[in-house]
């Protein structure tokens, strides 16, 4: 079988030889990307659809320009969409070679116009999996086993178009799918909180972030805020990614914007629609809006701070407010201010 990214043996050897000491890993976006991303790499994109997508890192990758990337993820929207746009505007600067994935769209915000464009024109290599398959592949990688058994989606065409194998279980005699480990060369992850050593505490769904971090050759973490190490280790049961699975830590508030970052900000509906509309125009033959979008928000800014500078304050305030208001409603608001609670009376 062919491996994209690292083979299990390569991944093991690379990690075994790595310096795993507890040391300050803070750096800036440009340095982290320069140090850990290369042309031709298999890049693991953490988050889920448009939540906690590593947008800041992807923008930086676009600014620096990397070619022939393989993207590995379960479900993603903004991350691959931004790379697709960069490729379609100038593929001598940035390009996707291949996808190992389960879903590329934006859920309630609609399908991905650029994914349709790339695929329907045969511009990228596809390997379809299910969400569970991709998550399990990262998990196998994180666990240090070459494959993991999975019962879905057996019998489907998904399993005919990828590298999974179906075997008779030697214990039960029934068929089971084996999905091979995924070890991207580099993982891109956005989290709420990290300490300077790379210990990460996630809020809300974990998605497949811990698994991707532990499976990958190198892991770059951006975080909404760096917290004191002593605060982090006060609650060891809440640490979701251990420091030695992380190679670089960059503090980037709004690092998942315009997506959702649990406890910090909800989707920026308006901005996502603006970006999607530019993609849709591109698919229909008008590349101007997409070019304008990239110039304005990615290429003419040096980092995420400058990107966020170009978003109206009222929009940022709104997405923070609807995220935090919701939290208040759940936990602290007086009953008369709460929405009808459809849970059971307990």
């Amino acid at each position: 079988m062919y491996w994209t990214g690292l083979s299990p043996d390569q991944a093991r050897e690379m990690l075994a030889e790595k310096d795993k000491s507890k040391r300050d890993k803070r750096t800036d976006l440009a340095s982290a990307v320069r140090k850990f991303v290369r042309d031709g790499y298999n890049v693991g994109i953490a988050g889920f659809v448009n939540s906690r997508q590593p947008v800041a890192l992807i923008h930086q990758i676009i600014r620096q320009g990397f070619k022939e990337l393989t993207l590995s993820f379960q479900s993603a929207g903004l991350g691959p969409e931004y790379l697709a746009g960069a490729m379609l505007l100038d593929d001598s600067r940035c390009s996707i070679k291949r996808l190992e994935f389960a879903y590329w769209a934006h859920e309630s915000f609609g399908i991905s116009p650029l994914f349709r464009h790339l695929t329907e024109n045969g511009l990228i290599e596809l390997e379809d999996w299910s969400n569970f398959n991709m998550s399990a592949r990262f998990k196998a990688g994180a666990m240090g086993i070459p494959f993991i058994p999975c019962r879905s989606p057996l019998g489907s065409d998904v399993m005919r178009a990828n590298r999974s194998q179906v075997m008779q279980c030697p214990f039960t005699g029934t068929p089971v799918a084996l999905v091979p480990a995924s070890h991207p060369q580099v993982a891109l992850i956005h989290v709420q909180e990290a300490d300077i050593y790379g210990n990460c505490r996630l809020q809300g769904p974990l998605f497949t972030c811990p698994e991707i971090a532990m499976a990958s050759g190198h892991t770059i973490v951006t975080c909404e805020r760096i917290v004191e190490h002593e605060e982090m280790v006060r609650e060891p049961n809440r640490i979701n990614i251990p420091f030695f699975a992380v190679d670089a830590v960059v503090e980037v508030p709004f690092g998942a914007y315009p997506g959702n970052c649990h406890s910090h900000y909800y989707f920026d509906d308006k901005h996502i629609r603006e970006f999607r509309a530019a993609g849709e125009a591109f698919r229909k033959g008008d590349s101007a809006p997409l070019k304008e979008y990239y110039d304005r928000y990615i290429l003419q800014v040096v980092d995420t701070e400058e990107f966020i500078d170009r978003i109206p304050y009222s929009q940022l305030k709104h997405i923070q407010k609807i995220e935090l208001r919701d939290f208040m409603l759940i936990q602290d608001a007086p009953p008369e201010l709460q929405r009808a609670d459809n849970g059971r009376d307990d």
Partner: protein
Amino acid sequence: MSFIDYYSDDFSPQEMIVVAGARTLQDNKVIFAGTGLPMVAITLAQLTHAPGIIPVFEAGAVGPRLTRGLPLSVGDSRTTSKAMYLQGLNSAFELAQRGFCDYGFIGGAEIDMYGNLNSTMIGDFPADYQKPKVRLPGSGGASDMASSCQRTIIIMVHEKRRFKEKLSYVTSPGFLDGSPDARKKAGLAGKGPYRVITTRAILGFDQATRRMKLLATMPGETVESVRDNTGFELLIDENVYQYEPPTNEEIRLVRDEIDPEGYFIKKRIK
């Protein structure tokens, strides 16, 4: 209350299916919810007859109360309020694979008579796989839910081009080729499709042949109109009936409480 006050006479086909979807859900069951209409239907069920439904979202949340507003994604912040378990995708799908999820509740783009769904591509597979005629978003978690939840409920728009004799690609397994025990022989854990809820009908599956069977027609539809909009030969239940229209209260809940911004349920232009 008179009949005229109780039932709505102003609802869209999309509103009808989320109401029917909600009514199909039993109280106190674990429902693994796909994105879009299933989330609306579950919320409606929780607000009406089934407050004890335990929703599971693939990004990791189990049993949240959907009191923060309708989630726009099965992985967003709104899926997590007061959840009783909150890990990640692996844990959610493992729960289903183990047997914790009574129903998988998913949407679909195309379906065949055995309840198989396509959400991957239109075109020849595998010949055109790398350059399909139309590319759809891909499996996501739907194929895993259809594989491993004990039963599957499917909710979709009923059009002839979506109810097909042969799918371009089987993304989410139904009864596969319909042969006896096809799912078991393939190694699937769950029992397969239970209901298909569409803009025109409520459909089930014939036990002997595993073929899709019309159980009820939606208000304004007939057996003939459903047949005409189905691209394969449909079995008709001997007790086929007219489905009860949405109540005013159900419609109010959908429009005013659950999806006031019309993210999933398009506003009806009067």
